[in-house]
């Protein structure tokens, strides 16, 4: 084992990489709420793994979507667990990423020099919401169908561009087969690619700049 580690270390200095990534200096006073970012990353991996597995047995067509999801849940061994993890993981993702954002906001961690990390984080939050919205339709059940109808109609209320926006979302006038393939492509291709890029940059900045120290309590002296 040590030999293998040495072999890589001699060539590409893996110990240095490990030290940079895992043996970072952490400011004093850091507690559990600082783990929300890592928790988000864990959920991202969970969603990616379970999502890939689900995609193997899912058919994004109105005639087959519901039946294929039933097939995953009832016929494939561990299918119910994998689907359950993805479904609950999705809710947790939205919650944990939002809590992470709230923590950063209230601790003022978004300030100089970490504005870029914050901007990327906001984009990541939007992508996560997009995942939730598009993924909701995929089981093609009543709830998903009508929720998407509501979503598309909400977009339709926007001034000037509303009608165009709802048409782009639905892929046409009505909610149907094209909407489903559109949402599926966005859910499994567009958003994952965006998320990987954004999270990669976000994490690079976190490692490069280190995390911010908790704000110091004001000692009561106001000038």
């Amino acid at each position, binding site marked *: 084992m040590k030999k293998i580690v040495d072999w890589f270390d001699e060539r590409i200095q893996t110990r240095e990489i490990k030290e940079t990534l895992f043996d970072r200096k952490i400011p004093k006073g850091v507690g559990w709420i600082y783990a929300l970012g890592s928790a988000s990353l864990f959920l991202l991996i969970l969603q990616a793994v379970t999502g890939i597995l689900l995609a193997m047995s899912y058919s994004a067509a109105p005639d*087959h979507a519901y039946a294929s999801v039933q097939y995953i849940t009832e016929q494939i061994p561990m299918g119910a*667990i994998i689907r359950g993890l993805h479904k609950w993981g999705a809710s947790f993702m939205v919650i944990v990423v939002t809590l992470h954002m709230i923590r950063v906001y209230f601790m003022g961690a978004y300030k100089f020099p970490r504005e870029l990390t914050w901007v990327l984080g906001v984009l990541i939050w939007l992508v996560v919401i997009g995942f939730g919205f598009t993924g909701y339709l995929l089981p093609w059940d009543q709830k998903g169908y009508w929720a998407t109808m509501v979503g598309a109609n909400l977009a339709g209320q926007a001034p000037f561009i509303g009608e165009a926006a709802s048409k782009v979302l639905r892929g046409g006038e009505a909610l149907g087969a094209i909407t489903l393939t559109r949402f599926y492509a966005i859910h499994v291709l567009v958003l994952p690619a965006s998320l990987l890029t954004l999270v990669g940059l976000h994490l690079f900045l976190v490692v490069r700049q280190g995390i911010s120290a908790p704000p110091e309590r004001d000692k009561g002296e106001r000038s």
Partner: protein
Amino acid sequence: MDTEDNGRRSFLKKAIFFLSGLIGAGLAVPSGIYFLSPIWKKTEEDWIELGPVGEIPKREPIKVDFVQRKKDGWVTVEGRSSAWVITADGQNFTVFDPHCTHLGCPYRWDASKKQFLCPCHNAAFGIDGEVLAGPPPRALDRFASKVVGGKLLIRPLSEKKEG
């Protein structure tokens, strides 16, 4: 580097590895089973009813058409297929896959020559399915068959005879 590598630090390190391993395994095991599940999937035994035994002529092969309902994941596919049925005594049946063992062309029965002839590459099979002429690598494939309540049932999965 770890100058203060006391009990507490190494304990926490071990705890982190242990818990991560536990969570990782908890995710990897169901995922592995899900991904590998085709290995343990049973092939469904679908016996298809061809019709009353009495309607099948003796000592003369007859081509019987049937509709096969196959489950393909969440889809049920109806496929038209056929089989050649031969019986000597009306009790024991031989059922041949209707495709030549050479390249899968459908063959026909030539009543005057008493041979199955395949038009693609001039193959010929005897009434027992053995190769008489042409390129086929083995005798005609057979379907499993049984008689239940005076009706002939077959299971149209080729039972390949090596030869």
